[in-house]
Every structure is written in structure tokens, then in C-alpha cells.
């Protein structure tokens, strides 16, 4: 039986348990006052039928494949294994393919067929065993909790504890995600550093990973395998992000100031959401826009004033990314500017300052920490942005200070090096994790600093 139908079976038992528990508690309640409502007892019986069996199912489906394959490999004839010259992994994969009735490369040996038959047999008995086990555990849970229904039993408390446990489990998922990100990237990065020394990675000035050499053994890789210096990628990332911020900070800040201080209410309520639409557009759309419209436009414009601007360049990607992050800066700054107490403005205006003087000399200095936080958040968004640079930055990893040239960034390189190949054996694909970890650390630092600043600022005026 598949896991899905087993879960369906458990759910059915749970429903039966609910009904039985409710009926019984109603019967008891007719004579005595109960601690909880009938549906609490029903729910309790249902949960007892479902949860223990469900955990067994989880454990079983995690452990059973490993146990079965080790039992099968213990049965394999040792002489045949030695003669074959294949790694144990490959042989087990062949056998499990045979057992699942999938095709394999080359004729199957007789001992392979025997092992496959054995595996099939083990799988069948495992499924039968599991079904029996689950059914009996669920039935036992149902039966005993059903028997325990008494007026004194605090069924509601049991249920509430269970619900709370589920809530706690759900709120740990976010932490587990972070741990998962850090762990997976750190392990793969350590793997990568077993090929390439960290100093070559962090301080190398050439990026030339060559083609992927998956399939070669590890020994033959350590000769000439390309250079993995991150500096050209970091400089490209920083250049694009800097151009984006140069576009977005003046525009975003002035938008925020105008909307917060000058604009009539009607104008503000229409303009603000329209500008915020920019934040909701998928980045692939910006990438396409940069590639087919902005890039050629900038190239033509450059040609008309005698500059050589490549259609896909740091400038193209940066300008379009700047458009994308305008709303990040404008919305956050707008919030922060409107939080500046009115008393400060009134004091300044009362002393005869004009509105722009008030904004420049009173409101902005007061809001500065918050605005810096907003800018840092926007910077972290720009550094981690992928699709725009994949399409519009030109992908040419070189240390160059010319924004009109094609560049490559950390994110682009991650996409290029890791294209869904699940074979993480070569430095060419492992480097993606080292790059990802670098990116993660940089954006994390920016975010933490920004969040701390913004939070401090909010507390100041609350």
C-alpha cells in the first residue's frame, strides 16, 4: 500500500474514532456531568487513533529503504561484486531499478535478478508489515482512549496541548529553514574548499572555472581546473548595486518627501500604490525590459554622444534594478518621514523657516537613521537580485571599473554554475554554494544592521 492510501486509512480511523468517542461521551453525559464537551472526547479519541500511528509511518518510511537495501547488499555474492568492478552504489541502483521494473543499462546478471527479486519480496513484506502495524496501533489507540472516557477525564486539555504542540512545531520551521540554509551551504562550501584553498577563492582576481568536469574522478581534478577568484564577481555585484542605488536613492527619497510633505491627499493616495506596483512586478519582467528596451536604448544613446555602451552592461542592469527598488526606498522612507513628530515641523515653521528648509534641516536629520536603514535594505535587495542581472549584465567576469562594459555578478554565476544538476562532486558546481554563502552573509549583515537601525528609530519616536 502506498503511503498516501495508508494516510487515508488513518484518517478514516480517526473519523471513526471521533464518532465513537462523541457517542460514548454523550451516553456518559446523560448520567453525569462531564469535564469537557462531547466533541472534545471525540477529537481526543480521533487524535489517539491518528497521531501515534502517523509517527510510526513517518519513522518507517524514513528508515525502511535503508534497512532493505542493506539487507539486500548483505545477500549479494562477494565474488560477483569483485568481478563486476562497479561501485556498490551503482549496483544497488541497478538492482532497485530492476526491482521497480524499470529498465537498466546492459543485460542483468542472474545474481542481480535474484537480488532484485529478494528486494521486491522484502518491499512487499515491509508494506504488509507496516499496514498491519499501523492498523493495530491506530486501533489500540482508538480502543484505549475510548475506554478512558470518564467524567473526570480532561479531554479538552489534552487537545489543547496537542494543538499547542502543533503550533510550536510550525513556528520552528522558520528556524529550521535558516539552519538548513546555513548547514547545507557550509557543508558544501567546506567540500568546495577541499578542492580550492579559501585564499584563492576570496582573494583571487580571475574567474575562469572552465567547463564542468563531473564524471572525472577526484584525483584527476586537482591539476589544472580553472581559477575561482570571487573578486571579479564581487566587483561586478557592487557596481551594479551602486548604479541601482544611484538611480533609486534620489528618486525614491524625493518621491517620499514629496508624497509625505507636499502632495495633496488625493494625489498621494493614487500615486503611492501606482509606484508600489513597481515592487510587485516579477524580476524576470524587469530583466526582459532591460534586455529588449533599456539596453538598446542606452547603447543608441551612448552612440549618439560618442560613448561605447554595450547593450548588456552594468549600466543597463543597474538602471533597471534602480527602477525596481525605487518603491522599497520611497515606501519605507515615507513611513519614516511621516513618523517624525509634528511638533518638530511646527517648531521649525513657527520660527519662519520655509517648508523645504524644514524638510532639509529638521525632518531629514531626524529621519536619517531610518532612511539609512531603508537604503541598506534596498542595497541588500539589489545585491541578491538575480533575474535582471542574468539577462542584462552581460555575464563577463572581469575586474573592470567601466560601467559601460558587461560584468558578471555573484548571483549570475550561481545560476550558471548550478543548473539543476544534482551531482555536487566537482568544484565547478560546488562553488555555487561558496558563492551563495558569501551572498547570504553579506545580505544578512546588511539586513541585521538595517533592522537594528530601523527598530531603534521607531522606538525613539513611539
Amino acid at each position, binding site marked *: 500500500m502506498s503511503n498516501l492510501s495508508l494516510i487515508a486509512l488513518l484518517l478514516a480511523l480517526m473519523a471513526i474514532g471521533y464518532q465513537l468517542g462523541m457517542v460514548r461521551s454523550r451516553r456518559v453525559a446523560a448520567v453525569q456531568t462531564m469535564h469537557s464537551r462531547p466533541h472534545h472526547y471525540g477529537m481526543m479519541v480521533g487524535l489517539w487513533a491518528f497521531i501515534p500511528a502517523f509517527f510510526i509511518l513517518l519513522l518507517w518510511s524514513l528508515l525502511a529503504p535503508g534497512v532493505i537495501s542493506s539487507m539486500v547488499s548483505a545477500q549479494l555474492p562477494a565474488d560477483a561484486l569483485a568481478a563486476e568492478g562497479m561501485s556498490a552504489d551503482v549496483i544497488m541502483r541497478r538492482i532497485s531499478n530492476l526491482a521497480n521494473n524499470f529498465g537498466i543499462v546492459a543485460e542483468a546478471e542472474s545474481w542481480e535478478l535474484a537480488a532484485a527479486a529478494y528486494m521486491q519480496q522484502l518491499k512487499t513484506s515491509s508494506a504488509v508489515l507496516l499496514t498491519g502495524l499501523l492498523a493495530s496501533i491506530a486501533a489500540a489507540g482508538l480502543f484505549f482512549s475510548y475506554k478512558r472516557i470518564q467524567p473526570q477525564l480532561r479531554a479538552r486539555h489534552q487537545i489543547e496541548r496537542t494543538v499547542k504542540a502543533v503550533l510550536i512545531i510550525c513556528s520552528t520551521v522558520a528556524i529550521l529553514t535558516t539552519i538548513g540554509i546555513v548547514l547545507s551551504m557550509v557543508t558544501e562550501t567546506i567540500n568546495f574548499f577541499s578542492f580550492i584553498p579559501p585564499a584563492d577563492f576570496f582573494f583571487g582576481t580571475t574567474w575562469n572555472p572552465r567547463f564542468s568536469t563531473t564524471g572525472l574522478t577526484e584525483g584527476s581534478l586537482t591539476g589544472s581546473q580553472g581559477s575561482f577568484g570571487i573578486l571579479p564577481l564581487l566587483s561586478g555585484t557592487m557596481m551594479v548595486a551602486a548604479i541601482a542605488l544611484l538611480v533609486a536613492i534620489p528618486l525614491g527619497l524625493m518621491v517620499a518627501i514629496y508624497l509625505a510633505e507636499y502632495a495633496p491627499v488625493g494625489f498621494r493616495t493614487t500615486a503611492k500604490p501606482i509606484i508600489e506596483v*513597481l515592487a510587485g512586478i516579477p524580476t524576470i519582467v524587469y530583466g526582459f525590459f532591460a534586455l529588449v*528596451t533599456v539596453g538598446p536604448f542606452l547603447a543608441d544613446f551612448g552612440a549618439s554622444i560618442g560613448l561605447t555602451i554595450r547593450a548588456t552592461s552594468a549600466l543597463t542592469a543597474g538602471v533597471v534594478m534602480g527602477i525596481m527598488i525605487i518603491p522599497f526606498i520611497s515606501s519605507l522612507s515615507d513611513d519614516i518621514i511621516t513618523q517624525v513628530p509634528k511638533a518638530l515641523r511646527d517648531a521649525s515653521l513657527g520660527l*519662519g523657516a520655509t*517648508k523645504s528648509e524644514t524638510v532639509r534641516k529638521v525632518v531629514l536629520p531626524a529621519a536619517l537613521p531610518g532612511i539609512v536603514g531603508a537604503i541598506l535594505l534596498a542595497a541588500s535587495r539589489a545585491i*541578491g537580485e538575480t533575474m535582471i542581472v542574468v539577462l542584462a549584465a552581460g555575464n563577463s567576469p572581469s575586474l573592470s571599473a567601466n560601467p559601460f562594459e558587461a560584468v558578471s555578478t555573484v548571483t549570475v554565476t550561481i*545560476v550558471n554554475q548550478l*543548473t539543476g544538476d544534482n551531482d555536487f562532486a566537482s568544484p565547478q558546481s560546488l562553488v*555555487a554554494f561558496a558563492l551563495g554563502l558569501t551572498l*547570504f552573509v553579506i545580505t544578512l549583515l546588511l539586513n541585521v544592521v538595517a533592522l537594528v537601525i530601523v527598530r531603534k528609530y521607531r522606538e525613539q519616536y513611539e
Partner: protein
Amino acid sequence: MTEMKMTPANDSATTSPAALSKTQQKVAASLNRRHRQEKLFKGIGLSAVVISLTLVAILFINIFSKGLPAFWQSAITLDIYFDPAIIQISEKPQQQPDELDNLFFQRDIEWQSEVGLINFNRLITEGLKKVLPDASAHRRDAARIVTSGERFALRQMVIDNPDIIGQTQRLHLLTDANIDVWLKGNIDRSLPDSQQQLSPKVREWVALLSEQGIIQNRFSFALFMNPDSRSSLASAGLAGAFMGSLYMMLVVIFLAVPMGVAAAIYLEEFAPKNKLTDLVEVNINNLAAVPSIVFGLLGAAVFIGWFKLPISAPIVGGLVLSLMTLPTVIIATRSTLKAIPPSIRQAALGLGASKMQAIFHHVLPLAIPGILTGAILGVAQALGEAAPLLLIGMKAFVAQVPTGPFEQSTALPVQIFLWQGNELRNFFEARTSAAIIVLLALMLSLNALAIWLRKKYEKRW
């Protein structure tokens, strides 16, 4: 610091007339300049807003002007005679009452592959001969008029209904992508023959047929009904990518939304205020700002590398996008819960409800509109995300519409990425823009739904 200087000056103004006139002079002298500055500053602010609005407008006008024409595609109207002399096949198998399902299935498959051996191109060529008398003299040119995918459409018609054999049907068949480009004027017609994709004969025919109205622009159902295609570019469609995105969104809706809401309820209502909760809070805020591509790396390492889930499958994409959406849902739900006045909880608790009952029976129902809004916005954000999907192999070319979340598939944003790189730029620039319009339409309607929900159920306490 003009205002600082003015304060003492104004104080002394009441006592000494000489100082007053001096200060007044100073103020009067600077007044014009300051008012000019004021106007300039306001003007800069207004122009920043106008520039931003213009950028939004340019972006949309650009995409729509490029993409809208692609919703109509040139098609040729032909009378196709399903000639029994060409389609020589045995009778379509019917399931016998005592026949086992799998035996019948096998017979049916055999019959279908028999139909697959028929040369359906000949039906199209015969149809073309009726409108182009000289088609048989230029066989090679004639074969390039109708896009190659249409022969499969004809085959499917025969498989669905074998009675069609012997009948004549008037069909609108898609023309080759190059003809569509030519007719829409997206190619320089003055280029010499050697640089043209279409041979002179085909161009002559196309001009003739479109003059006669036999080739016309028709609404392109192919764009919506077909999966991606590489051999027959004109019939490449979004159906596969759409289904892939749909499966992923289902995973997000059933995973990220309930989990996020549960986590938010715990953190907002139950969690003790201590260091650990603080850590969780900081962690969630940071997770919301982690670049999406990092989630793709996580998916590649954990779901594909360790758990051995299938590559390119919507289930993996859905899991990755769920983890990405989770912080958004948690943050939105928490702020909604925060906005519900404590009096609701106190009233429930005062009447003897347990904390759990107070929250699940009284607070949560009031929070549902806000939670839904947050969840929809999270799903819309996940729908447009492409970068993490590239890392888990969803940029593979998939020519079928996936029928389940474990099958190979792409997604709408990834399809846009794949199409923009196609060599036939003239055709695919419009096709890509059309795909973008579809994606934007989906996202905007999700957003509109969220705004409507908020407007409809918004309560001010």
C-alpha cells in the same frame, strides 16, 4: 541655520528699532532666494514622482505594445479532406465487456501508434493544393507554410473521432512562425533573399493568400492550450508552464499558508516573551530579506541532494517557494493578530473560555480577512519568482503538460526566461511579452482580490 539666527534677532526687535530694520533687511534680502529654493525643492519632488509614474507607464506600455499582437497569430484556412486512401488504419478498439483494463489499454496504445505512422502532412499538402494550384511544383516550399505541429493536431482529431475519415473539414491551421513574423512586419522586407528566412515562392504565396483572406490573424488558442515546443515554434504555448505554476501554488497554499498562520498564532498569542522568542522574531525578519536565489540553493542541496526528490518537479519548486513565502505569511498574520483589540480576548476569557478557545473561536475569525490578504500577496510573490527555480532544474525544456506535481515541468516566469533566449527573436519577443502579460494579469488579479478582501472586511477598532 536661518531660524537659529532669527530667534535672538526677533527677541531684540521689540526693544531696538535699529536692529529690527537691520534684521528685516537681512530677511528681506534672503527671502527671494529662499522662496526660489522652496519652489525648486518642491519642483524636484514633483518631478521625481512624475518620473517614477512615467517609468511605470513606460514599462507597461512597452510590454503591452509588444505582447498584445502575439495573442493573435496568423492562421491559414484550409479544407482538409481526411482521405481514406491516406489514412489506412484498422478500426478503433472498443473495450469488450470481458476484457481486462490493461489489455484494452495496450490495444488502444497499439492502435494509436498505428495512427501515428500515417503521413498527416500529405493531408495538409492536399489541402494547400486546392488554394495554391502550383503547390505540387514546389513541394518543399509548400511544406513550410503550415507549422509542423499541426500534423499532430490532425492526428489527435483522428484518434478522438475516427468517423472523421472520409469527411472534409474546414480548419484554421497555424502558419509557420516565420510567416507570422513576415505578415506582422517584424522583419525588414528589403533584406536580400539570402538573408530572408522565407523563400521567394513562399513570400509570393503568403502575399496572395493573405490578400484572398485565406491567411488571417486569428486569436491564438495555441498560446494557452499547447505546451512548449521547439520543433514547431508557432504552436509553442503556455499550458505546461501554467500547470507547473498551478501545482507549485497549490503546494504553497497547502503548506506555507497553514504553517505560517500556525507559527504566527503561536508567536503572537502563546510564546513567552524571552530571548528565544526574540531570536525567532529576528530570524523570521531576516529570512524575509534573504535573496530568493539562496532558497534555490537550499532546495538544490536539501530537497534534491539529500532527500532525492525528483529534479525539475513542481513539488520541489513548491517546497522551495513555500519556505520563501513562509516569513511573508507569518509577518502578515502577526500584524493582523496584533491589530485585534485585547478586549475581544478578555471578553472570551472572562466568560470562561480557555485561551485556546478564545483565540480559535473569537480572535482568529476576526483575523481571517487580514490573514487571507497576506496569504494571497505571498502567493502572488511566489508566482512571479524565477531565480530559485532555475537552480532546481525547472528550466529544462518540457514538451508535455504535467499531470502531477512529481512530473517534470517549468513555471510561468521560467517559461518567460526560456522564451526570451530563443533564436527566433522576432517571433519570441512578442511571444515572451504575451507570456509576461499572462503572468502579470494573474498576479494583478491576485492582488486585486487581496485589495477587495481588505476593503470588504476591513474593520477599524
